[in-house]
């Protein structure tokens, strides 16, 4: 285990497979996050396996977004551990700052878009390429060769990312002027541009209609296959979750409720009860 320093870059090397059972990419152990007296996440543990689509579901207020904010280190949990596997060993995310988590290859999107609304789509994505740039401040101020070279390469990279999400046509549009669905794609493009190994998606389908959701499902599957990233997503659209997930973790009232394949979760009594409010089972006090 090691603590990140600023210079450390996320490694692009694939996770070394352990014979027999694969080791988890991310291991959440006993995480507890309270705001004052309100416990938002209580003793939650689960593993995210490399190369999978892992959904985090649960009723509103279950603590899913809080969990995501803990992983990306916008929040600091009071208890627990979050081990993240890299090519050069495990990293405890609790010892990282938010920007260091991103540099480890953990990208995320937000429930309510966090875009640079006044900038163009191109600039939004280009900003995500910052950490691939090595030119120092002095090189940047004087426009020295390495600065110019990097600028060229990264601009080409951005073109490629935009192409992958069919956003080329909007490249030079200001984000604020774009429809909501396109803005969501821009946020996805920006996360993709980090070349992440783990993507945290907070309700990627929110506000989309059924047709858009289908298209999003296709896009996510295609992206995951092409970059071999692991997806951890929070989602309320059950058709989407059921169609793309390998594993589903269910949270309820801040606690871990169940985990399994889509089929297992669909028929899990505790999950059904949590979603339907336990009306039929007569457990009301």
């Amino acid at each position, binding site marked *: 285990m090691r603590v990140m320093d600023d210079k450390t870059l996320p490694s692009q090397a694939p996770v070394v497979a352990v014979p027999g059972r694969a080791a988890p990419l991310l291991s959440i152990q006993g995480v507890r996050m309270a705001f004052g007296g309100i416990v938002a996440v209580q003793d939650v543990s689960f593993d995210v396996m490399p190369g999978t689509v892992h959904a985090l579901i649960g009723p509103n207020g279950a603590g899913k977004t809080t969990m995501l904010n803990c992983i990306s280190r916008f929040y600091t949990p009071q208890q627990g551990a979050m081990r993240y596997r890299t090519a050069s060993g495990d990293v405890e995310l609790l010892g990282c700052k*938010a*920007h260091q988590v991103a540099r480890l290859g953990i*990208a995320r999107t937000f429930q309510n878009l966090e875009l640079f609304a006044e900038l163009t789509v*191109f600039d939004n994505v280009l900003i995500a390429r910052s950490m691939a740039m090595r030119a120092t401040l002095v090189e*940047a101020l004087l426009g020295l060769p390495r600065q110019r070279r990097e600028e060229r390469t990264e601009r080409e990279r951005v073109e490629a990312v935009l192409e992958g999400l069919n956003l080329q046509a909007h490249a*030079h549009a200001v984000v604020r002027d774009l429809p909501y669905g396109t803005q969501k794609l821009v946020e996805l493009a920006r996360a993709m541009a980090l070349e992440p190994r783990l993507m945290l998606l907070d309700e990627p389908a929110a506000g989309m209609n059924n047709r858009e959701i289908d298209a999003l499902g296709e896009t996510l599957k295609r992206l995951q296959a092409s970059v071999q990233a692991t997806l951890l997503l929070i989602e309320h659209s059950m058709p989407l979750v059921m169609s793309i997930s390998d594993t589903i973790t269910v949270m309820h009232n801040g606690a871990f409720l169940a985990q399994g394949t889509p089929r297992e979760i669909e028929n899990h009594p505790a999950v059904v009860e949590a979603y339907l409010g336990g009306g039929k089972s007569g457990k009301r006090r």
Partner: protein
Amino acid sequence: MTKVFDTYPWLGPVLFVLAFVLAPLVPGGYVLYIFTLVIIYTLASFGTNILTGYTNLISMAGAVFFGIGAYGSAILTTHFGVPLVLSMFIAASIATVVGLLLALPVLRLEEVFLAIATLGFVMISVEIAKSSGDMSGGENGMGAPGPTLFGWALDERAYHVFTAVVLAGALWVARNLARSRFGRGFLAIKGSETAARALGLNTTALKLVAFGVCAFYTGLSGALYAPLVRFIDPSLFSIMVSISFVSMVIVGGLGSILGSVLGAVFVIGAPQLLTYLGFDQFQRALYGVAMILALMFLPDGLASLFKRKRLPGADAAQSGGVR
């Protein structure tokens, strides 16, 4: 008007050079002095714009950097025999170091809280300047030697061109900065600090860079100011100086190079023009009214009169701007 500037991107700079650099050389004297002043203040306006217009950090510490630049250059030339150009560079560097040190404790503050906290630095610095020893003359201030370049004394016209060359260099560097990951990082912080961090940007380091660049530019502005006026005193560290820098950027247009220039023209030029027109008595009041009117009718700054062009680096500008 807007279209003309979009079609001919070189027109703006050419007009600026004609109107602000070359034309004032003809009459010389007081008119030239005012234009030299505008050029010098434009430099501080640039620095403030990088911090406020780009990064959305409102700092009232401008006077501290300006004063350090002016005093630093004057003390180095008078007491240590340092050549003027070198003294300017050293003084601006000292301002940068001070800027970084001041920024460290207040970086967590945002918006108006940052403004008030940095105001405290101005109050402290003016007291330090007043109670300082023989070297800077304490409350009485000190004389600053006139401009020289490689041992040659510069007359008012030569010094005017000299300041214009410095401004051009500063502009070029600012443009490079804006088109780098640093400049885009500033814009990212302004857009959404949360997103910036999620994309791996070290926002604390970026804010420090913004503070440092602002302090350097403002310090350089002060260092150019001292040889022009040839006398400096602790009033340089007044809150009004800080306010004038911030007003230049806000009246001129946040995040716009043209705005930085127009802001400096307005803040320095308007009071002079009013005096010239004989409104001596009500000069300050009319200036205040003019500022209110400018903000009422041009909330995006004077620059929006011409175009809504962002500082380079924002992609909109590179791909032709207004569409």
